[in-house]
Structure formats: C-alpha cells, structure tokens
C-alpha cells in the first residue's frame, strides 16, 4: 500500500483510463472500459473507438457518457432506443439500443449499488475483441455467484470485487490471492497484464493496444 502514489501523474492517468480485456477461466472474456465516456463504432484496423463492433455501423456511431446523474446515450448516426429513434437519451437497465439497421445492444446495470454497467450484443454481431460483453466500470466490478453481479459465476461462494482507488485498480477477496507469484490477503493492487488466482477463480487482465 505504501507504494501507491497519492497524486496521479498524467501518464498513469492515461493508463488508468485505457480499456483492458478480462479473461476468466471457465467463464468468459470481457472488455472493461474505465473511461467515463466510451465511443461505439465499427471495428477498423486503426481502432478508433473504445467499443468496436463487427457490424454494419459507422466508424463512430454513438457515445455513452457516464455522469453523476447516470448514463446518457448520444447518437452520432442513426440510433434507436427500444424501437424509437433518438438523438440523446438517458439509459436505464435493460434498454435496447439499435445501432444502424441491425446491430442491437442491451444495456444493463445488474447491481443496484454499483454504477458500473454492462453491454451485451443481442443481434448475433460481435465485438472486435473476442469477448462476451463490454463492461463500463465506474467504481466496482462484481464477479460473483448472485444474479446481482456484473459477471455471474455460479460456482463461486463469495464475490470477488474489482474496484478503483487513487492508484488505479485493486481486488477484494475474502481469502488468499496469488498475483504473478506474490500472495495477498483480502486486498491486492491490480493492473493490466497481471493474473490473479484464488482457489475459486483465475482471471487475467490483458492490456489492449
């Protein structure tokens, strides 16, 4: 804990904001976006948007912004929400967003006490990254057995919580955690590129270039 810098530098602020892939053994892969503003659009070799979709959508099709009041969806190109064309709207859990003609994404906030949200593609399209869902991580990311988890893992007995602090990311788990050969108890600092193992779950955070 003593190594945590109290004042974030510009460099690690940028690092803190960039998305990473979360690979969980036996569960799935997730794209975790940390920025309060994420762009959605077509997957291109340049990788212009935060959440790239392999679908018939524009290069920058929409933006989702997290404010203290909640999430807002802003259309850049044609966007419908729950079947109605919109320009800008407030998002609520289980809203369906249609980008272009066919690409449909569902917005979820499965945990009432957490601001973090999850986007699942419902139309059979895919993310550019081979992941199941995109997670818009605000304060916490709960991986646990209950339905009120951002990532549900029925085999677990206790939730593993990823959270953000001044230094960046950290994990909370009631027990021992191994991170890249070091053992931690209850809490551990975490950053992209590390692998965390507990007796119930193994997850890897991969930096996305």
């Amino acid at each position: 804990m003593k190594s945590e810098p109290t004042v974030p530098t510009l460099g690690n602020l940028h690092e803190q904001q960039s998305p990473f892939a979360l690979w969980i053994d036996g569960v799935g892969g997730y794209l975790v976006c940390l920025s309060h503003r994420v762009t959605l659009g077509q997957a291109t070799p340049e990788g212009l948007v935060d959440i790239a979709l392999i679908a018939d959508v524009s290069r920058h099709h929409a933006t989702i912004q997290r404010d203290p009041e909640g999430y807002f969806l802003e259309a850049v190109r044609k966007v419908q929400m729950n079947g109605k064309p919109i320009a800008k709207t407030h998002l609520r859990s289980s809203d369906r967003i249609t980008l272009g003609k066919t690409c449909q994404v569902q917005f979820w906030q499965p945990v009432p006490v957490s601001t973090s949200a999850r986007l699942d593609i419902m139309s059979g399209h895919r993310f550019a990254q081979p992941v199941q869902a995109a997670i818009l991580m605000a304060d916490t990311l709960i991986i646990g057995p209950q339905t009120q988890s951002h990532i549900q893992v029925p085999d677990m007995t206790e939730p593993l919580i990823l959270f953000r602090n001044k230094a960046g990311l950290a994990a909370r788990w009631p027990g021992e955690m191994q991170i890249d050969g070091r053992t931690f108890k209850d809490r551990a600092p975490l950053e992209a590129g590390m692998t965390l193992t507990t007796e119930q779950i193994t997850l890897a955070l991969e930096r996305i270039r």
Partner: protein
Amino acid sequence: MKFTYRSGQQPLPGYTIKRGIGLGGFGEVYFAVTDGGKEVALKWIRSNLDIEMRGVQQCLNLKHPNLVHLYDVRTDETGNHWLVMEYIAGEPMSTILARHPNGVAPELAGQWFQGLAQAIHCLHEHGIVHRDLKPGNIFLEDGLIKVGDYGLCKLMAESQNAGMTKDVGTVHYMAPEISTGNYNRQIDIYAAGVLLYEMLTGHVPFEGESAGEILMKHLTTPPDLSRVPKAFVPILEKALTKNPANRYATIQEMAKEVATVSGARPMPVAPLPMPNPKPNPEDAYPMAIPMTPTLVYQQRWAELFGILLWSVVAAAILAVSWSLIFGAYSKLAPMFFLVIAVSWSVLIPSKLWVPGSDDDSWTRRLMHMTLGFAVGIFALWLDGYELPVPWAPSTRLEVLHPWQGDQDTADALRRSWMGKMYGSENTSMPILACYLSFFGLMFLVLRWWKVTEPTRSKRLSILSVLAVVLWAYIFLFLLPSVHHRELGFVSLVMASIVVQVTCPWKEKASVKKKKMRLATA
C-alpha cells in the same frame, strides 16, 4: 477450475492462450487467438495413445454446419498433443438446460433436435460413432446446434471388437448395450433420445445416486414418459428401447418423426452426396450387420428365460388354488404340467418371433397349431395313455378307441354341475384325433401372441381370457370324456392367464394421463 496454462502463454507457437474454457474427460480446453487473429479452441490431449489420435485424424476433414470443425492436430515441444478446433462463442446445452429446469418448449426442442440429428447423421454417414453425446458436448451458437468432441470417438470398425467398454459416454446417456461391449451407432440414437427427453423435461430419464444405479436403470427400467409431451411419447419409447434392434434404424428416421410432431423443419433427405441414388441404410454400415442378430437373440433368450421361470410359478399358484377349491388333488400334477406346456408353447414362439412381413398372422397361427398338436400328445400322455409311437410295441388300443376308464368317478363327475357343462362322451373319434384336433384348433383360432406383446392395452385382459373360455367350450365336444374335458378346458384358461401375467407389459403414459384428468375433473 484450475488450468495448467495461463492467459498470454504460447504452448504452441503462433497460438496465444486467452483463457481456459473447460476441463473435459480428455484434457483441458482453452480459448486462444492465432497470430493472424483467428479465434480457436485448443484441446490439450494428455493421453499419448496413438489410437486416440487416429480417431481424431479420421474426423479432421469432416465438414458439416452442425459439427464443431477440427482444424489441426499439433504436437508441442514437450510431446503433448493439441487439437485445434473451431471456437464456439455460444453456450453448451448443459448451461442452457440448467437455466430451464423444466425443459424448453417442444417446438424449440424439436428444432434443436434437427441440428443434433444432422450432425449425428453426418458422423454415421462417415462410419463414425460419436459415443459421447451429452449436453456438455453440444453447443448453441446463434441458434445453430454444434456438436463437438466427436474427434475422440473411435471408428465404428474399431469399436466392434476393441472391447473398450470403459470411458464410453457419460452414464446418463449410455445405452444399455454398452455394458456388453458390443455396440454400434444405435448408441448414438439412444443418447439422442435421452437428450430429447432432457430438452423436453429438463431431466434425464434415469437419475440415481451412483453410476452403477443409473446403469442398472438403463438396463432394466423403462423410462417414465409421463412428463414428456404426449406427441413425443411414441418417439421416445422407440429411441429409448433397451433392445438396439427395436430402435430407429437411422437418426434421420427419428428426426423426421420429431419434425412432424414438433412442427420443426425436417432435415434434408440427403444432405450428403451419395454414390447410390437410393441408399440402403444398412449398406452404409457393413460392420453393423453381423453383430445385430446375435445380440438380438442373446437378449431375447435372456428375456424369455425369465418369463418361463415366472410362468412356472404362476402355473403352480393357479393349479394349486384350483385343486384346493374343487378338491381335485389327484389332478393337480397333470393340471400343473399341462398349464406349463400350453403357456410355454405360446411364450417360446411369441418371444422368439422376428417380425417379417406386415401380415404374417397365418404363418404364426399355423406354427402355434403345430405346437398345439404337440401339446395334445403331451396331454394324452398325461391322461395316462401310452404314446402312439411305432417303436413302442405295447401301444395300446385305447389310443385309437374311446376311453374305458373308471366308470364310477366318471359317473360322479357327469352328475355334478361341472359334468353338465362338460357334456357327454364323444365316442365317435379316436382318442389321438380328439386330442390333436382340440389343442390344434385352440392354438389355430386364437392369436395367442397378441397377449404376449408388451404393447397390449392391459396387462391382464379379461376379454382375451373370455375368448379362450368361449372357444375352448365350443371345441369341448372334441375331447373324449368328462375327465379330459375338465383338464383341457381349465388348463387352457389358466395358461391364458399365466401368459398375460408373466409377459412384460409397458403401461402407456397417455392412458395414465387420461385417467388422471378424469380424476381431477
């Protein structure tokens, strides 16, 4: 779940592991991305058996939209084998079924079944038995069924004599004949039946505490089809039959019936190019033919043996109660043996009969009649006559002439109510002809095998017993005297009861349902 390899490692050059997917019976499965960006599933096969790898190689170039494609087999620096496969982004059927504990809609189950059947058909067409069909090996990706793990099955040719009875299939989906070590593609049809049952109800047909208990149920217990939608009952009945010869001959046949019942689109008649425009389903499996009849006979004999033993018990109970009620102790032994003779003459040909053409009723009647003649001769001998055989020099004339026995007992019997029923002496026919015609005709006029079928409507039908009573009464005049009439008449009626009581009978689920509805109405 603990995996050996971590995210980011490259056990095979060019493939970067992202995460573990699952732990299978054959090894760990990982999700990996190639340097070029292709997503694949990597299966680490720990066993070094060449035989396993040969099975994989046989399947490596199969192409079917409902099969998980195999791309390559690679060996890493340490000598471990890796199977490079298509990555399926969807969920395994096991996860889907866990979410639907009471099964899915019949239409959906029917639709999924079509995909499953197409995949199995493709494997069978290529001479491959899957042997391990289970929800964990079946995936749903964008509504399309994908069957995996078939690479680790053996070739049908090998499976005939390999004698590898271990590790074949998960017990819940294991066909009964696997225990004999002698099986063919029919085990996949059985497993498909179990899967259809599970999709419809959310449960496997046989559940139990231990693998042994479940295996025993596969071998002996008929599945409880009362939970299944009514229309699917006959299909599952046929697919889950213990005897592989009575199941659907091909998965296509089953899929067609499922499609009719569920309203799903049936699978194309010939999805694969065939050299022969009208392929004989048997021809595609030359290996399957030699073993089937022997297996059938073994099972039939085993079933028959059990039935014959029970029929002895039933005959004893009936004969003893009859002699106690009517005080006919002296006739107990002949009655008992005659009932057994009649029952066995019905049971043995009925249970060993292999169905031929649609209407072989007269062949069967004539065969039963021949046995009826034999029973007649046996009854003759039981009644105290010497058999009219040419090598017995002391053949007595009574055989050819009416019986002249103990007149007092005969008179007593004649005066009783029974005597009135059994009528007066028949003195016009030789005794041998009397016996032959009575028993022969009794076996000819009735379709005895009908009451031995497991599909008969009731276990013990009073109507069929009454039919025996009626016909035996009509032919009663043929028997020479009151003595013989009583024995002949009663033994036939008893045998009719014995046969029905001892023959296995499957209760129809639909009948039960109707009754329940009436009860609740």
